[in-house]
């Protein structure tokens, strides 16, 4: 049983890692946790479904459109939620992003919900498992894995080596100093929300063939990704990915060996344990902002 649990744990882990990357991206630039991030994933998945299944576009084209669509939803969330609250206390932002998540969930239900069942996308690659060292692995699982790693590497390089990445980090560390050197802080925020949403969309697109889409996937997924970010150290890109895999694998093992019910709560347990014993997480550099 172990090999099966591990492969499924690694795959969901890769998904959590990608969703967590988006959370970290927004956190690093704006200093806020985007509680509507899970819903961005959900919408990205439905965009892919609509373009691919409903409209009948080629999978790759549909994917790209879904990612672009997600980017614009992210930009819209900046304009609707963030920009008006740019000077408000942190708690207002928390409430606003939670509120925005309900709005998006409502939109998801309106257009794609109520069909009595979950929607699914057929795998694009051959669904037959590959047998690697006696373990069955779905090709789509490998694609998700590769996608997560590629995103992580891209964003790490982006923050370390590009001026745009450094502008985002500077804005996160000290927005006032960012204004004072002439960084267009509002623009940085807009691109960040867009990019964070685009990664969520990309994760959804990669993952859609493996899971079922529903307007309500957002919150559960947010929790898992949040556990991954807390575990990895809020603000660390590498930490988010490692945390994602740990949460995914822990969940699979706990569900398989102990009790299925543990699968759902294991991310809560991880969040609590980390906050009590190592609040800065595994790779934490920023620590947790205490409001």
């Amino acid at each position, binding site marked *: 049983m172990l090999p099966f649990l591990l492969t499924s744990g690694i795959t969901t882990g890769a998904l959590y890692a990608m969703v967590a990357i988006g959370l970290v991206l927004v956190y690093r630039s704006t200093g806020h946790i985007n509680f509507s991030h899970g819903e961005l994933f959900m919408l990205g998945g439905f965009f892919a479904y609509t373009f691919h299944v409903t409209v009948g576009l080629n999978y790759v084209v549909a994917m790209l459109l879904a990612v672009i669509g997600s980017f614009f939803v992210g930009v819209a969330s900046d304009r609707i939620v963030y920009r008006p609250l740019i000077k408000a206390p942190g708690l207002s932002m928390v409430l606003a992003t939670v509120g925005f998540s309900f709005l998006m969930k409502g939109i998801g239900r309106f257009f794609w919900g109520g069909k009595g069942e979950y929607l699914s996308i057929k795998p694009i690659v051959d669904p037959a498992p590959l047998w690697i060292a006696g373990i069955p692995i779905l090709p789509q699982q490998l694609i998700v894995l590769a996608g997560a790693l590629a995103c992580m590497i891209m964003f790490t390089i982006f923050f370390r080596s590009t*001026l745009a990445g450094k502008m985002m*980090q500077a804005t996160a*560390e000290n927005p006032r100093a960012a204004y004072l050197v002439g960084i267009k802080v509002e623009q940085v925020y807009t691109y960040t929300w867009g990019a964070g949403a685009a990664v969520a969309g990309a994760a959804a697109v990669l993952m859609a063939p493996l899971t079922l889409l529903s307007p309500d996937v957002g919150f559960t997924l947010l929790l898992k990704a949040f556990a991954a970010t807390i575990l990895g150290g809020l603000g660390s890109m590498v930490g988010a990915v490692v945390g994602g895999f740990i949460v995914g694998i822990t969940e699979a093992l706990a569900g398989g060996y102990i009790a299925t019910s543990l699968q759902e709560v294991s991310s809560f347990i991880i969040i609590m344990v980390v906050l009590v014993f190592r609040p800065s997480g595994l790779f934490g550099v920023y620590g947790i902002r205490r409001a």
Partner: protein
Amino acid sequence: MLDVRNLNVWYGVTEVVRDVSFSVPTGSIVALMGGNGAGKTTILNTLSGLLKPRGGELALDGESIKDRHPHDIVVRGLVQVPQGRHVWPGMTVRDNLDLGAVTRKDKDGIRADIEEAFALFPILAERRDQRASSLSGGEQQMLAICRALMAKPRMLLMDEPSAGLSPRIVQEMVAAIRRLHERGLTILLVEQNVGVAGALADTAYVLANGEIAFSTDGAELATNPDVLRSYLGR
């Protein structure tokens, strides 16, 4: 020339700067003094576009800079070195300097200016790959100054550059500010240290409760610092 006319700034329902007028002639060093809470930082932040004034006029070389985005103000050559330094702690000295030049495109000029910054404060060159959080208070102040210089300002707004530094570092800072002035920078210097202001300023304004209470020229400042001390309440 920076011209501040009848400036009024409010935080919510509180008037913090009341009808303040002064000017900083091109090529001069003007000190803006006053105790804690007098409104000095508020004035600088209004000049930098971080705060919107309720009334008054702000002009740089005859052109209004009121209600401009902070980016436009930096581009026009008015750059602030903030109180408490505000360097980016998680980034290296080099990154802090590079970011100081985000409004510029001339790569060669930027490279030359980084070398010039390192010449002004050689210790920063040694620390170029260290995180700013590992620097001492004095080094962070030097970095904050150099970061502002990277924008190629015509005029610097310096908010208490000597605060919290040891007397030896304060002397170094005074010498550095003097060198910047000799290189042609106009400086509006917010200070609580009468010694520093007296050593540098051509003119000083004393702010009390958001209003200009007193002004004097540098000669008087140097010879008769007690007048100022009495206004500053120490």
